[in-house]
């Protein structure tokens, strides 16, 4: 063993969580090291080539608003972008982009390498060094000790990774990587419990062997939108995706080979995600569905590899080829890499604090897929928060905690820490109670100030944001103050706009609230409108049109905060509280919620339990007062 270096923050893993963690901490001025098992696998996208979508796109915008890298990196390497859900309301508009996978990796690697305060190293970490419950560093398989004040574990699917493909099974990480075989033991020894999860990916096929004429083209948006509030607007060249369907022949092939599926032979022990089922799982669980849709997605400009979205599988290679060839357009298909399942250890996230620091070891943080989530975006979001908080920890500052009413990131972390998860956790808009407030369009307005306050958001970003915020406020005030009456002139303008006439006075804001009136329509028909950037107009329009609903949610947040602010003493002995259900007692003891609001969100803790807690705490308070 030799001491190879000394850092404020050491990040284990350079996937989407690790990269954000390392960049955040380095940008906040902490001396940071990022260790990866393979330098060529930085920011690897081992599954689909896409970033974003409903709720995930929200996360990416939030990462950006706080000063993270994922959004900028995606915009810079984009091969297609689509805004989904445009007809379903502003809160659920969802941006999704396809990225050139290799370009994504290369750019991120370059950003890491050129980041001040950040060292990048290839090594396999075997051990986390802990003394008296405080983290001291990490030890590599080569016997190198990196001393550290904080360590962020962002090991993705590498902990005891095991690849399963038909009857073939071997130890390894995704895409032919090594697995981290010893780190799990080190975590266990430090009192951190692990759980085994599973996920999977479909085959990659050669585009030269695909007959696209039998598929439906899925082009990107005419006017692609960026994830980052900083990326320059404008069109970039795009590649289309393609839509095709499975059929009864496909299902017949799968059914007749189920006995060879590791899912059913018992080879796979880990719990897989419900939202990302393998094709064999779909066929078995929904036998009445005669066809499932597939998207064939390009993996980059410089490769013929294509991703078969909807076909995740761990059936043997020959079966994969057989069922793919039953599909329209894939009759002659050639597989370049087969699909596979991967099992891995992850940390049971209820052992963490909201800062993502473990309760068991001071200074040890965990983030990303290693915390039981799935998805690049969920990983990056946690990495960012873990990196920020690791850096704040070294400076002796309070952690950055986002609440459920601040951000999807807050929902994500709160869910993980308070409720835990029994499958790889995916972010969904339906998990966010206050989503009319947590829109992807206003992520900067919600979070950039916070990112600036912790020292992560750059001056440049902050100034741009502050200007935008001011323009929105000014225009809103102007529209609300500007009154018009039913004069001849005004009525002419209204009829010109094709909207109903006015009977009495109204503000321009009230006019804008109408279904058939848009900001640009007002702008064309009324004088003295300022020329405002697109994102400012968007905010003004949403703010006015959805004012009633936004207010309603703001009131809900206020009520939510009341219970959230009722603090529970950390030393509370739940076993001594009579009347709590056994389940509640166990879970509360384990999770130790900081507030009644958190306690109420723990599954198995009923409102009756909360009332008891409330009465008990009140009682304890009174008793103390009377002594």
């Amino acid at each position: 063993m030799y001491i190879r270096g000394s850092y404020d923050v050491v990040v284990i893993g350079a996937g989407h969580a690790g990269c954000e963690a390392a960049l955040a901490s380095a940008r906040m001025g902490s001396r940071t090291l990022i260790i990866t098992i393979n330098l060529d696998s930085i920011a690897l996208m081992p599954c689909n080539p896409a970033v974003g979508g409903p709720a995930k796109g929200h996360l990416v915008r939030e990462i950006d608003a706080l000063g993270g890298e994922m959004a900028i990196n995606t915009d810079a390497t984009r091969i297609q972008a689509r805004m989904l859900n445009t007809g379903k309301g502003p809160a659920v508009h969802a941006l999704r982009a396809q990225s050139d996978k290799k370009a994504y990796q290369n750019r991120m690697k370059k950003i890491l390498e050129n980041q001040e305060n950040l060292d990048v190293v290839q090594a396999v970490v075997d051990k986390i060094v802990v003394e008296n419950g405080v983290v001291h560093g990490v030890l590599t398989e080569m016997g190198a000790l990196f001393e550290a004040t904080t360590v962020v574990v962002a090991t993705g699917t590498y902990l005891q990774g095991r690849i399963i493909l038909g009857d073939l099974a071997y130890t390894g990480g995704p895409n032919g990587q090594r697995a981290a075989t010893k780190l799990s033991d080190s975590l266990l020894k430090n009192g951190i419990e692990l759980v085994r999860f599973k996920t999977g990916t479909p085959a990659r096929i050669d585009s030269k062997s695909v007959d696209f004429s039998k598929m439906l083209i899925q082009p990107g948006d005419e006017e692609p939108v960026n994830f980052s509030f900083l990326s320059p607007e404008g069109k970039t060249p795009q590649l289309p995706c393609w839509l095709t369907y499975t059929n009864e022949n496909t299902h017949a092939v799968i059914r007749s080979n189920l006995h060879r599926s590791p899912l059913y032979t018992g080879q796979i022990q880990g719990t897989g995600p419900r939202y990302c089922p393998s094709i064999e799982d779909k066929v078995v669980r929904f036998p009445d569905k005669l066809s499932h849709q597939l998207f064939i997605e390009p993996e980059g400009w410089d490769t013929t590899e294509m991703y078969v979205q909807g076909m995740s599988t761990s059936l043997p290679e020959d079966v994969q080829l057989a069922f793919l060839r039953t599909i329209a357009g894939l009759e002659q298909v050639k597989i370049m890499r087969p699909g596979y399942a991967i099992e891995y250890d992850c940390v049971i996230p209820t052992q963490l604090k909201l800062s993502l620091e473990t309760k068991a070891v001071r200074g040890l943080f965990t983030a990303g897929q290693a915390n039981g989530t799935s998805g690049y975006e969920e990983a990056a979001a946690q990495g960012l928060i873990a990196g920020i908080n690791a850096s704040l920890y070294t400076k002796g500052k309070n952690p950055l905690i986002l609440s459920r009413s601040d951000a999807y990131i807050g929902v994500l972390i709160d869910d993980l820490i308070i409720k835990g998860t029994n499958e790889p956790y995916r972010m969904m808009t339906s998990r966010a109670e206050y989503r009319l407030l947590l829109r992807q369009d206003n992520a900067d307005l919600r979070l950039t100030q916070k990112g600036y306050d912790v020292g992560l958001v750059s001056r440049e970003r902050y100034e741009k944001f502050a200007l935008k915020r001011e323009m929105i406020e000014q225009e809103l005030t102007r529209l609300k103050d500007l009154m018009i009456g039913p004069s001849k002139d005004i009525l002419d303008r209204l009829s010109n706009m094709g909207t109903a006439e006015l009977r009495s006075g109204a503000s321009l804001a009230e006019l804008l609230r109408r279904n058939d009136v848009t900001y640009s329509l007002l702008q064309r028909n009324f004088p003295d409108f300022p020329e405002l950037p697109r994102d400012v107009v968007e905010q003004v329009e949403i703010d006015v049109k959805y004012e009633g609903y936004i207010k309603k949610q703001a009131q809900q947040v206020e009520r939510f905060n009341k219970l959230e602010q009722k603090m529970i003493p950390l030393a509370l002995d739940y076993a001594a509280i009579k009347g709590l259900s056994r389940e509640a007692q166990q879970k509360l003891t384990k999770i130790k919620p900081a507030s009644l609001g958190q306690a109420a969100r723990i599954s198995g803790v009923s409102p009756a339990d909360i009332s008891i807690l409330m009465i008990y705490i009140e009682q304890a308070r009174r008793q103390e007062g009377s002594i």
Partner: protein
Amino acid sequence: MFINDTIAAISTPLGEGGIGIIRISGKDALGVASEIVRIKSLKSLCDTRSHTVYYGGAYDLPLDEKIDEVLIIFMQSPRSYTAEDVVEIHCHGGIIPIRRIYELTIRAGARPAEPGEFTKRAFLNGRIDLAQAEAVIDLIRAKTDAGSRAALNQLEGKLSSQIKSVRGDLLEMIAFAEAAIDFPEEEIEEMTAVQIAKRVKANMVVLKDLINTASSGKVLREGLHTVIIGKPNVGKSSLLNALLRENRAIVTDIPGTTRDIIEEYINVRGIPLKIVDTAGVRETEDIIEKIGVEKARELFKKADLVLMMLDMSRTLSSDDRKLLKELADKPCIILLNKADLPVLLDEQEIRDIMPEKLLLRISVTKNEGINLLEEQIVGMVFQGEVISNEGAIVTNVRHQHAIQLAYDSLQDALQTIEAVMPLDCIVVDLRASWEALGQIAGDTLGEDIIDQIFATFCIGK
């Protein structure tokens, strides 16, 4: 502090029953009781076996005065209602012995229980969950058979099951909408606004019914505050007697209130009518002449129901007209008595004054129309619905409030749909409604929606 002390209370409604029960709960329950009760067969009360009935006497010992014969039951912790040591002293139902024994328990060191405190302790000690606790409180307060039935139904989860079915339907709609939002590229059939509106309306009907029964829940607990007014000799006392003849009546001297006010509880088909009159009214009758229109107005201002009696054999007086106008916005039934005599009263004139009020021809002396009157009263309480054993009646203010919130949110959802707002706004209202109802069933929120989505749709990349 408050968990360890011993509390006592009168557990039976004053004056209503043949026996009265004083309940003592807490560590010193037996000690308190031993200051009052003597049992011949036992040297000390501390020798009593748990859950066994003993016969004895209650004494005011300093005076060496026997107050009443009593039965006493000791229920040792935790096998009691509160899970604490509990002693029940059963005495005769008269107000005087009950109150004296109760006062003696306080003198012996017990603290008067706060309203609902027994249940609160039962709740704190883990004997009952929240939904039950509230129903138990209502059970204690229920003054009539129908009230008890409603409270019992709530205990058995009848209300819960109705609420659950509405919630289930809301959840399904939410899951459809959420699945379409979270998985826009999957082949999920989208619900149209028209379909959502239709289902929202159907659920509103169910909730409205529950809200309607809620107002009757209060009546079941507290009695229907009823005032009978009319001229001398119109037949008020005969009506009262007719109602009394058929129904159990309890006359209670409520301590602490004006001495000459008498509350009469008449149990009409399970609905307690609390008939409030000045003491003399039954004999001297003429409330209008005696106390004037002003006073009469004051009297019926607080009433839930006014029974206005008119004599069909006489013409309408100016006082009658004044009173009728006063009653315009009051729930009331106009009783046209003496329908068996030659008619001088102009019924049309009354209908002109109060077109929306119910007019009933009755003859108290011939016992005609009394049944009809009773039916109308029950009908007004349940707003046309007949109470049955199966009915879910909301007897609890908190539940009533939650149902109202849920209803209002559905109303909002309809408005949102009408305003052509997008799906995510509609979902906000649906979720608000679903969550309001969740407060009653006591479900934790969380994964329900997501579970529903994955159970219903085949989703995934």
